């Protein structure tokens, strides 16, 4: 008897599910496996000759987003961001590959089953996409009506949501009477109405001014925290990634070219594109007058110009003055900036190292030995 009762405590759910790599460590809420999307110029691909190539928007994308995480996908326009996020709830059906949300394979579903699954996935858009014919209340009620919920229940669900997004006083207004930020708040309340497990954000703050963007991001962070909602967002703004994402993927020409923790991405992006995003964000480019004087190869009487990136301990260590003392090199700081990203501090500096070729080489070695990232941008002729 005792053993049978004991059996009730066995985690039967675990044994019922197939084992997946990584599943033991953390539950994945969104999984894209080898997802590709090709658009054909003349509609569907049925019975199409092999010569008709089409346009490939996504190439073999693999993406895993653990439960409760905020994952950002950043890329330039046309990189495939929109297609990627639309593949998650199958607004775009992938040409090949599979999409799992909350362990359900969406790519195997269609019709009613897919609609049911979509009730568990909220989505917000760059241009809000609120129905102009409905009040704020009725907009938030829409997904619940679609699920066939009763009026009384809808009311009980909608009002607290409008409270959550801070629009309790706008219940019977129409979207046209609201500001951009308020519209996005309504859209967020609407996306949350069906109590989804996942929220997809399609450039949700790109149409908003910086101040409103901050407030909306704050709200999203709050929701992620309070409701444990998994958020996948796409953006072209590093600011968005910096302020709310835990992890970030970089997309270029339909491929995910880099993925990292946000702190790592901002301190040491691994790809050229990643670095260019970071530089644009930090606006740390050498002055134009200097660029014109930069030469690639070191000359007999030239100094290296370097970009230094330092994070962690290096930020608080007086490295520059030590450099002067220990290597005998003078440092002329051309530009500098310090940013804090999540719990990390990131310093960036463009500097000219003044000394002999040997001295400057030694200085660069010294800096690298202290975990600074040193990039030699070029060399400038010494003023004689």
């Amino acid at each position, binding site marked *: 008897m005792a053993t049978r009762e004991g059996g009730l405590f066995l985690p039967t759910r675990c044994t019922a599910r197939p084992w997946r790599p990584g599943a033991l460590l953390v539950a994945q809420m969104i999984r894209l496996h080898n997802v590709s999307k090709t658009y054909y110029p003349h*509609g569907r691909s049925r019975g199409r000759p092999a010569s008709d190539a089409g346009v490939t928007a996504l190439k073999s994308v693999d993406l895993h987003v653990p439960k409760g995480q905020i994952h950002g996908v950043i890329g330039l326009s046309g990189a495939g961001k929109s297609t990627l996020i639309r593949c998650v709830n199958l607004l775009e059906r992938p040409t090949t590959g599979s999409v799992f949300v909350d362990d359900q394979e969406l790519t195997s579903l269609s019709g009613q089953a897919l609609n049911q699954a979509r009730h568990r996935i909220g989505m917000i858009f760059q241009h809000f996409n609120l129905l102009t014919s409905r009040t704020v209340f009725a907009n938030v009620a829409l997904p619940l009506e679609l699920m066939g919920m009763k009026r009384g229940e809808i009311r009980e669900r909608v009002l607290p949501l409008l409270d959550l997004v801070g629009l309790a006083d706008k219940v019977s207004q129409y979207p046209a009477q609201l500001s951009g930020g308020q519209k996005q708040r309504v859209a967020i309340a609407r996306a949350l109405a069906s109590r989804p497990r996942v929220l997809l954000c399609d450039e949700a703050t790109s149409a908003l001014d910086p101040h409103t963007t901050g407030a909306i991001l704050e709200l999203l962070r709050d929701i992620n925290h309070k409701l444990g909602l998994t958020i996948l967002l796409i953006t072209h703004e590093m600011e968005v990634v910096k302020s709310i994402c835990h992890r970030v993927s970089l997309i270029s020409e339909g491929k995910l070219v880099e993925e990292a923790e946000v702190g790592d991405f901002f301190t040491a992006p691994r790809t050229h594109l990643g670095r260019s995003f970071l530089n644009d964000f930090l606006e740390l480019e050498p002055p134009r007058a200097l660029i014109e004087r930069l030469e690639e190869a070191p000359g007999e009487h030239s100094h290296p110009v370097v970009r230094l990136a330092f994070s962690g301990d290096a930020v608080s260590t007086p490295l520059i003055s030590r450099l002067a003392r220990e290597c005998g090199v003078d440092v002329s700081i051309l530009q500098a900036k310090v940013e804090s990203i999540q719990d990390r501090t990131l310093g960036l500096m463009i500097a000219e190292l003044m000394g002999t070729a040997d001295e400057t080489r030694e200085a660069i070695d010294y800096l690298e030995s202290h975990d600074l990232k040193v990039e030699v941008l070029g060399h400038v002729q010494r003023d004689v």
Partner: protein
Amino acid sequence: MSSAMFELILEATLDTLYMVAISGVIAALFGIPLGVLLYVTRPQQILAQPVANRLLGVITNIGRSIPFIILMVAIIPFTRMLVGTSIGTNAAAVPLTIAAIPFIARLVEGALNEINPGLVEAAQSMGATPWQIITKVLLPEARGGIFTALTVTVVTLISYSAMAGAVGGGGLGDLGIRYGYNRFSPTVMLITVVILVVMVQGFQSLGDYLVRKSDHK
């Protein structure tokens, strides 16, 4: 003016209103769904059916390209089959309805085309079925445009109904032709024209009011 004349005018006015009302209502009942169908079966739309869409489009265009006066005569056998006669207001209502259906359909299709496609996408992301998208998104969002379409249709029907008078359809057009034109009575002609103008103004104002009321953009 004699009271007999007055009665004639009153009767003709009511006949016109009757023809416009009956053909307007029936045409709306068929035309609005046809317009929705024309829109939702377009390629890339929620019920994409390119072949059916093209077929419907061709049929609609045929309906719209036949001049009303010819349509009226051409479908006399059909009219007779439907209402038992080819003369009178009921008989005139048949070609009016047939002419108005594709007219409304194209206008409704145009109104639906004005809707931001993002709204349909949002509804799809919420798991809406095509039917739910039509009833909860497309039709409510296009309400203003549909009222505009119906107003234009009613105004067109008023002028077409006057044409129906030429073949014995009754109504103000009939009166105008028989008394005003054939009997050279400028008074009757003027009165019919004034009544038609007032009618058109009235319906236009009503339509504008409904459009304004349903527009929250």
